[in-house]
């Protein structure tokens, strides 16, 4: 009986690891998509902007935490830093900081779509390993 349970556990672990491998980048994409959907559903522009800024801030914090972890391979760090820079740029555009023109209220829905689509095209996410991507997701969940 014990052997059978162990065997089933190993099979489930293999199965879940395979699924996780495919879903590393998808989780990050879904995070931004959910934030954009929530922002677009809000009626007040101030609320829309806050939702988007909040989602970007959480991701920035998660990336900062991951960047300081010794277990993160050095090959991932460049990708993490570039992703952080891209997110910071989007955050600056929302807030009108660092020389960027503040996104107008009436363009916030379109900007939310842009954010999702730009992240889906981001080659930096592809270069970050699965383990690091999952770490980022876990940290974001802990921050929530």
């Amino acid at each position: 009986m014990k052997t059978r349970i162990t065997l089933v556990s190993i099979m489930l672990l293999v199965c879940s690891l395979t699924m996780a491998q495919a879903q590393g980048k998808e989780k990050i994409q879904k995070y931004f998509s959910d934030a954009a959907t929530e922002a677009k559903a809000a009626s007040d522009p101030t609320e829309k902007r806050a939702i988007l800024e909040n989602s970007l801030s959480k991701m920035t914090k998660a990336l900062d935490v991951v960047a300081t972890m010794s277990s993160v391979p050095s090959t991932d760090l460049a990708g993490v830093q570039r992703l952080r820079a891209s997110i910071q740029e989007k955050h600056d555009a929302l807030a009108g900081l660092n020389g960027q023109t503040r996104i107008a209220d009436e363009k916030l829905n379109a900007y939310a779509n842009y954010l999702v689509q730009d992240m889906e095209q981001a080659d930096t996410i592809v270069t970050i390993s699965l383990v690091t991507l999952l770490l980022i997701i876990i940290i974001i969940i802990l921050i929530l």
Partner: protein
Amino acid sequence: MAVLIASCASTLRVYEEALTKTASARYSVLFMIHGDANYVFHDTVGIAHFANEEALAKAHTVAQQNPEAEVFIFHDRPKSNAFLFFPQRDGDFFYYRNGRLAATHSYWRDEGVSRFATQAALYNQFSITGTPGTTDTSNMSGADARTSDSVVRMFVYFGHEIPEVEGLHYDASYPDSTLTIKKFSKDFQVFTANTKPFDLGVLSTCFNGTPYSVSSFAPYTRYLIASPTNVHLSYFDMAPLEHLERSLSNSDVHNFARKVATHAFNKLSSDVQTVVSVVLYDIQAVEQYVTSVNDAYMSSLLAIQSAPTLTLAHCDCADQAPFASPLMKNGVEVLYRPAQFGRDANKLQHSGWACWKLSK
């Protein structure tokens, strides 16, 4: 045991043998859809889509809506196991003749000697264009009886950017294998080995509108549609390929290619906020430009080959001194709309050619 046997058995199924042997076709379309990577994108209401599956569905629609064409569809799927342990085939093939599904097959993608060996064998087995001038026209009549030389041939490739430098992975299920445009185009020649080049090729990929990538396909097609920027995963819409007997009745491929490019551009522009560019390259007319910049471009590839991946970025060739030239306008028809937001929102024009730069 049944699963094991099923996974090993040959799966070629021919549903319409008579159709494949006697019916005529004026058009031949080859769809190649790469799905062995992350192809998830989200629409504006947050619903996740699998781009490769949607491209596959559209390819089937094109095939069914073409009563005078043969349509090949090859779909690369991720490796998967039945009941965790029994590997399943990771390539699917569909062959339509005159709007009807004539044959299907599932295969292992790594069973051939080259990337497209298995696909080419199936292609040559069924294609009316496989051996020039030998199409069986005995059962055809009048205008329908034609040799393969008069068939209008097209290919469409959906996938991620095909890398130009060595060492980059492409297939998620084959982490030890790499792919380059050089290898891709070399292996691709099996589709033109026994016949004339394609009339129109479409690369629905990011950033393959470069002098090197375009020239790599020069031996295989007269016209090429590609993008020198990102292409969102919703891809080039191929609806204009439906009912080719209407849209391409006069066999004016150049004009038809314009319509395909314009439709894809308009659809993407209405759907996405990121940059959109669709470029039609007249392969013969661009030859002078790509030849003139070839040495400089190969030097840039050598330079980036040794650079860390993340310091690389694409740029408009018009913004790079060795590549900016009056010749770059010859033979290109550029449809471009900048991103609606971000640092490139103010870049209002594009030459239609992508080059490499080392980002700071």
